[in-house]
């Protein structure tokens, strides 16, 4: 037996915030809210998706509170044409720390979708429900997030020879 929800929530919170103490706070706040609003929970819903929906709010609210300088670039600037792609990457040569660092560089909205889809292996419709966005948006953010992540990782394996992508932000 494992603790699938806590582990998954903590993991996601950790890679969203980059700091263990923030991640632990976010998970506890998520559970605190969950039981506060338990009466509003529809039993037919997937509790995991519901918890991730709460976590998403907790994380983004905390980030907004911390953020002093909003990022100005729009989603459209981070197109696949601006990042490396198409060739198989030397993913096996990468160290975990490099991968973790690279995912921290993704804009928050992309990062969340990549973490939920790739690391937590959630279905697109579950991600759409948890983040309250259309499935099409899940797919486009996942596409761009993966491409951008690959770009950042190539910087480690190819001595950063390519030009950096434009500043990536979320509209």
């Amino acid at each position, binding site marked *: 037996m*494992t603790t699938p*929800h*806590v582990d998954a929530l*903590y993991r996601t919170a950790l890679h969203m915030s980059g700091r263990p103490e923030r991640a632990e706070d976010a998970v*506890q706040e998520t559970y605190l809210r*969950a039981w506060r609003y338990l009466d509003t929970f529809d039993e037919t819903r997937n509790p995991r998706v519901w918890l991730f929906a709460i976590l998403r709010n907790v994380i983004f609210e905390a980030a907004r509170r911390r953020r002093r300088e909003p990022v100005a670039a729009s989603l459209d600037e981070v197109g696949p044409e601006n990042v490396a792609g198409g060739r*198989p990457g030397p*993913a*096996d040569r990468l160290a975990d720390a490099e991968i973790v660092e690279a995912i921290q560089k993704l804009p928050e909205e992309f990062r969340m979708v990549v973490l939920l889809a790739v690391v937590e292996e959630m279905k697109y419709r579950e991600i759409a429900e948890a983040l309250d966005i259309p499935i099409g948006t899940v797919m486009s953010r996942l596409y761009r997030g*993966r491409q951008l992540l690959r770009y950042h990782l190539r910087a480690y394996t190819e001595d950063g020879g390519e030009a950096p992508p434009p500043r990536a932000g979320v509209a």
Partner: protein
Amino acid sequence: MDCREARKQLMPFVDDELDAAASYEVDRHLAACPGCRAEAESIRSYDARLRGACRGEGAQGAACQAMRARLAAALDAEIARSTRRRSVGRLVRRGLAAAAVAVVAVGLVIGLLPGPAAADFAADHVACIQMRSSWVADPAMLAELCKAAAGAHARVVSLARSGYALRSGAMCEIDGRRFLHLVYAAPGREPVSIFVGRRLGGLAGRLRAVERRDKDGQFDVVRLRCPAGNDYVLVAGAGSPAEVLADAVKPQIGR
């Protein structure tokens, strides 16, 4: 299917999001196209490394592992409790028709049985609370726990200060309303149950009666009203959780 179309479908294909027909088409294209096949492999390869890095290797992963270890003990206990409750529930249901007088009391016991989702949620909740050992001993955190009911968290705080520690927690249901049931224990003392819930409805009336009993010192009950108008309740008393709850509510059931 040409390469352009295949590339559009590649991520949903790798993520197993395509229906059988579309998946077959992509599969067929990949079999014939080394470039697209390499791209699919590249996506899978990066995904696998990302999963590995985020799930428990390296420095960040070590934090996940440490947290898992802290959760394991709490969860084992919760699983054991859930299993016991289910067994008791089966016996109780068999005896349901035996005595009409007992219907309400039996209903209460059944109400304590968590469904699969509730049990899962409760296990995580317990694990989460115990994840930070300072929670129970930290009056600030306990105050936060009961923030919506300003000023009424004194009982929980005093429990923590007098050496009680959170032993377990579970979701339970009383009259169709859900409560978080926390059991606090201290060495050599009776465990104390605390039920936290909201929107009490008819149950509030029963608990008012319990408040009267509280004056006799048999139970320690605090009923709270938060600013939004929803009732919160903390019920603390000695004895096993089921006994505390049944005894607390029983006086009103017979009326």
